[in-house]
């Protein structure tokens, strides 16, 4: 039965996403590789991969913050507090290296806290890619920064990253991204094919697993999903937006899907945003990576594009997806998101698109309150439909 096959195909992804750092440690323990963590956004994991090491996008783990409170205030965003908490408890010591991106003041300060707390065995770097896209010389700056990062990684790996290897890594990552796009397109066509929970899991697994193996599993999953006939729509079709830096907790995704709505599309970090853009495969690979970093197709408020681009982009994406409304998930204290939020509100109001904003926190609190809001939103949409 195709259901059983689908479940089997999903199993390795679920395992990796449920215990992301155990997956990474297992890789390391089997002597296969060194592991280098990187923070969102835009970090070109291909560079780490081409050096023969496992790139790991830092994950927000489930435990509430405890020891971390000796190092960070409670009014910092969840991913920052979680990372600092893990560091304080020795939970990040297995990394050989960590590269943070300077995307917002909290991310930068998380890096500084970690630099202060972690043992010297975890080598750290801060990648300062341009935060203002209109500046002169932005491409050269990016290239130079990539060169610095490459040097750091080579030092860590104890070997050079050859252009040939980098080009191959780019091709592998492009392939994986293409497969993810295919999966998500299949779900836009028929959301019942794969729950949003599982879609999240599939993306997150790809942030910690060896990428070759991941690619093979993705191809298998895509085959299974393509065999699933499109189902009749039930429930309101909605667009899920937000969470720039980490995925929403699965409890919240379950809550959303539990109201009976169908998530047709999204722009989450652990969703479309992660695999939206490929790097070119011709020309010098480092330049291709620089161009991918500077690509403005998917606006991101952690850098200045001069036009609050995400607001208009969101409206376009919602219209293309056929969704009847949107749920905006904002991680509490995420300033890049909060500053563009009023513009998103205005754009959605002008476009006549109903939306519900939900603030999420690292510690999952007030699920009941969220349930009430979601249900009220659906009731609103249902009445509008009559």
């Amino acid at each position: 039965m195709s259901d059983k096959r689908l479940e089997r195909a999903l199993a390795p992804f679920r395992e990796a996403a449920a215990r992301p750092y155990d997956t990474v440690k297992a890789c390391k323990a089997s002597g296969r590789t060194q592991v280098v963590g990187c923070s969102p956004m835009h970090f070109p994991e291909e560079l780490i991969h081409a050096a023969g090491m496992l790139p790991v996008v830092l994950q927000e783990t489930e435990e509430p913050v405890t020891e971390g409170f000796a190092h960070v205030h409670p009014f910092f965003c969840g991913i920052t507090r979680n990372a600092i908490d893990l560091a304080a408890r020795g939970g990040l010591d297995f990394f050989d290296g960590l590269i943070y991106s300077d995307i917002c003041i909290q991310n930068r300060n998380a890096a500084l806290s970690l630099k202060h707390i972690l043992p010297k065995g975890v080598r750290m770097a801060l990648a300062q890619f341009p935060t203002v896209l209109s500046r002169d010389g932005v491409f050269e700056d990016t290239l130079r920064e990539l060169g610095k990062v490459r040097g750091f990684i080579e030092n860590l790996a104890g070997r050079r990253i050859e252009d040939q290897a980098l080009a191959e890594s780019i091709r592998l990552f492009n392939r994986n991204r293409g497969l993810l796009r295919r999966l998500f397109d299949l779900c836009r066509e028929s959301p019942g094919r794969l729950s949003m929970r599982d879609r999240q899991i599939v993306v997150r697994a790809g942030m910690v697993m060896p990428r070759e193996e991941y690619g093979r599993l993705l191809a298998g999953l895509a085959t299974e999903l393509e065999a699933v006939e499109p189902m009749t729509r039930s429930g309101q079709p909605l667009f899920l937006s937000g969470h720039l830096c980490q995925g929403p907790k699965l409890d919240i995704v379950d809550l959303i899907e539990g109201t009976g709505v169908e998530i047709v599309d999204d722009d989450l970090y652990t969703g479309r945003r992660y695999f939206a853009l490929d790097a070119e495969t011709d020309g010098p690979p480092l330049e291709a990576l620089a161009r991918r970093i500077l690509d403005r197709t998917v606006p991101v408020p952690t850098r200045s594009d001069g036009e609050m681009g995400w607001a208009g982009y969101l409206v376009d994406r919602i219209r293309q997806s056929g969704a009847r409304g949107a749920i905006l998930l904002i991680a509490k204290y995420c300033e890049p998101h909060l500053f563009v939020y009023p513009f998103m509100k205005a754009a959605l109001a002008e476009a006549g698109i109903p939306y519900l904003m939900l603030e999420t926190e690292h510690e999952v609190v007030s699920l009941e309150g969220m349930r009430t809001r979601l249900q009220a939103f659906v009731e609103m949409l249902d009445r509008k439909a009559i």
Partner: protein
Amino acid sequence: MTYAAGVDIGSLTAKSVIVDRDCHVVAYRVVQGLIVDEAAASESLSLALAEAGLDRSDIGCLVTTGYGRSMVGFGDRNVTEISCHARGAHFLFPGVRTVMDIGGQDSKVISLSPDGGVGNFAMNDKCAAGTGRFLEVMAQALDLPISEMGPLSLRSEAPASISSICTVFAESEVISLKARGRSRLDIVAGIHEAIGRRMHSLVKQVGMGRPVAMSGGVAKNVGVVRVLERLMGTDILRPPEPQIVGALGAALFAREALA
């Protein structure tokens, strides 16, 4: 089976309303409890039925709402208190565009579209600041019955400045002000200002349209109402029984579903 019922199960009170096919309210009951559970919810329904001279089989449809709406085993469907407060307020005050509900544990603002449906809403349910609980804690700190708080607050000419963002902060401020000899009148007025400010910023999140109505137990507090009327620059409509607006809305949804 020509009647419909709505039961609003909050954390401190259970409210039931019964309406007939013409949407007349034939009975209602509010049951107060330390813990509101299925038994308390059932009791409020039984009491309302008894008052109307009906029994359970006369109810063609029952809708539950409130915090405990999915907790109880009875009921044909559940609808959130947002939709129910909007519905109930719209019934009582046709044309109302903003509804403010301040209950025991939470508060909300609902903006209605011209047809009476929910247009937008904002909730404060993460902490007690600005809710009935806040008033209770402060009343205890001042050794005053809650029912006196509102009228007393109107008599002050210089309300004390009290935090609106945290009940614990506010309580320690009240104690400190008392110790420094500040008059109880001014402190009570300050508490009402704090509740009003908190509610006002919730209103701002949603946008204010007139006319404005209030529901929930705290609507009976004339002090809070006066502060809100001043901050918002508008009169506030209040039903004689503000606590049952949610249950009324639920009953009206149930009525819709009657064949």
